């Protein structure tokens, strides 16, 4: 039987020799075994790298998600302020941008749902602000229907554009508060004018006193003003022309009057 060892074959096989592994190999293997025994639960091969990769990826994903949620919450907190920010005169550029973008995004969807009454109400709310108004707060702000926001933002944007177009007259009106009912003053322009007056640039600019220049014609530019002064001079109203010229020089100190115009506007000697 094959199971029974053949004595002759076995003896011959034993005669082949008793080779053994070298001592260095023994020591290397035993040292590795001791090192492994010192770390009973740590395999010689580190856990698959993908586990560490998963951990790093998961941490990064959580961080990205947290940042995204924070930004989204920030935007949602800004959202209720979009209406007063858009309608209030002193509106920051950031809020404008946000209100506009929100308006663009949601106006198409909400335009059909917004009732005409709501749109009219929003328009009226904006137009009623003839003086710098404090942002509505609390219940007043919360009571504003959400669907009015895009409409109000659009109205406010249109008003701002109108006010920018009429910026010089508005400044002139500011110069002359004694003539509040000038034709150039409109309901929509009033907040813009106030806005211009309350802006840092306007505050830094020297404010001319009320006088003849304002009473002449607020919408006129410097050249037209000079023409009017020349007309006054021709009509012999020298006192009035002198005052107007003085105010003109105070208002436009850097404006260089041509020699020809100078002869017309200065009192003849």
């Amino acid at each position, binding site marked *: 039987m*094959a*199971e029974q*060892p*053949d004595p*002759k*074959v*076995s003896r*011959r*096989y034993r*005669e*082949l020799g*008793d*080779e*053994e*592994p*070298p001592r260095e*190999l*023994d020591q*290397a*293997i*035993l040292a*590795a*075994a*001791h090192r*492994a*025994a*010192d770390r*009973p*639960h740590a*395999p*010689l*091969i580190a856990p698959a790298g993908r586990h560490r990769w998963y951990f790093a990826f998961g941490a990064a994903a959580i961080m990205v998600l947290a940042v995204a949620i924070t930004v989204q919450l920030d935007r949602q907190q800004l959202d209720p302020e979009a209406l007063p920010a858009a309608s209030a005169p002193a509106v920051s550029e950031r809020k404008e941008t946000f209100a506009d973008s929100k308006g663009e995004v949601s106006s198409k969807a909400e335009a059909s749902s917004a009732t005409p009454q709501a749109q009219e109400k929003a328009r009226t709310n904006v137009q009623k602000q003839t003086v710098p108004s404090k942002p509505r707060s609390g219940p007043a702000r919360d009571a504003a229907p959400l669907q009015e926001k895009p409409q109000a933002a659009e109205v406010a944007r249109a008003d701002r554009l109108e006010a920018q177009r009429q910026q010089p007259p508005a400044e002139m009106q500011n110069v002359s508060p004694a003539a509040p009912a000038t034709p150039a003053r409109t309901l929509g322009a009033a907040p813009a004018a106030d806005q211009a007056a309350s802006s840092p640039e306007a505050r830094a600019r020297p404010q001319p006193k009320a006088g003849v220049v304002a009473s002449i014609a607020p919408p006129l530019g410097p050249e037209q003003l000079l023409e009017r002064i020349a007309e006054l001079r021709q009509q012999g109203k020298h006192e009035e022309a002198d005052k107007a010229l003085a105010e003109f020089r105070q208002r436009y100190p850097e404006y260089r009057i041509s020699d020809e115009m100078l002869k017309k506007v200065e009192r003849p000697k």
Partner: protein
Amino acid sequence: MLAYRGGDARAFETLYGRHRARLFRFVLRSIKVRALAEELYQEVWMRVIEARASYKPSARFTTWLYTIAHNRLVDHWRRGGLSLVSLDDHDAPSSMPDPAHHAEAREALARFAGALERLPPAQREVFLLHEEAGLTVPEIAAATGSNEEAAKSRLRYAMAKLKAAIGDG
């Protein structure tokens, strides 16, 4: 092995001392190139160390150890483009010198060594597992991943050829 799995390094030393020479000869006589044999021998033991946590005493440690050694040998043959199965029925060419040139005392041993080298790898492995590791046919079948009939047949063929080499066949 269970003691070593629990962190007892001395238990491994006992195991290693018991199996080191036999396992080394098994690998060396399977491969015949000493440097390669040493490399594979070390790989086998490293694998034992690595796999200690997954060791289950469902069979003799010797069977488990030689199963690992068999797998390393198969990998080695595969890297060389060889297969234990494909060479099962074909005798390998001998690189040994003609034993007729040696003295009579060493002639029989040389013939035996030549016959062992010329054995097909699968038959040689079965013979070595039987003779060197002391495994039974079922254990050989388990270690080599074959059935008992195949293991028994290979062992019978190997024995017949070796007997013939020493003039006893």
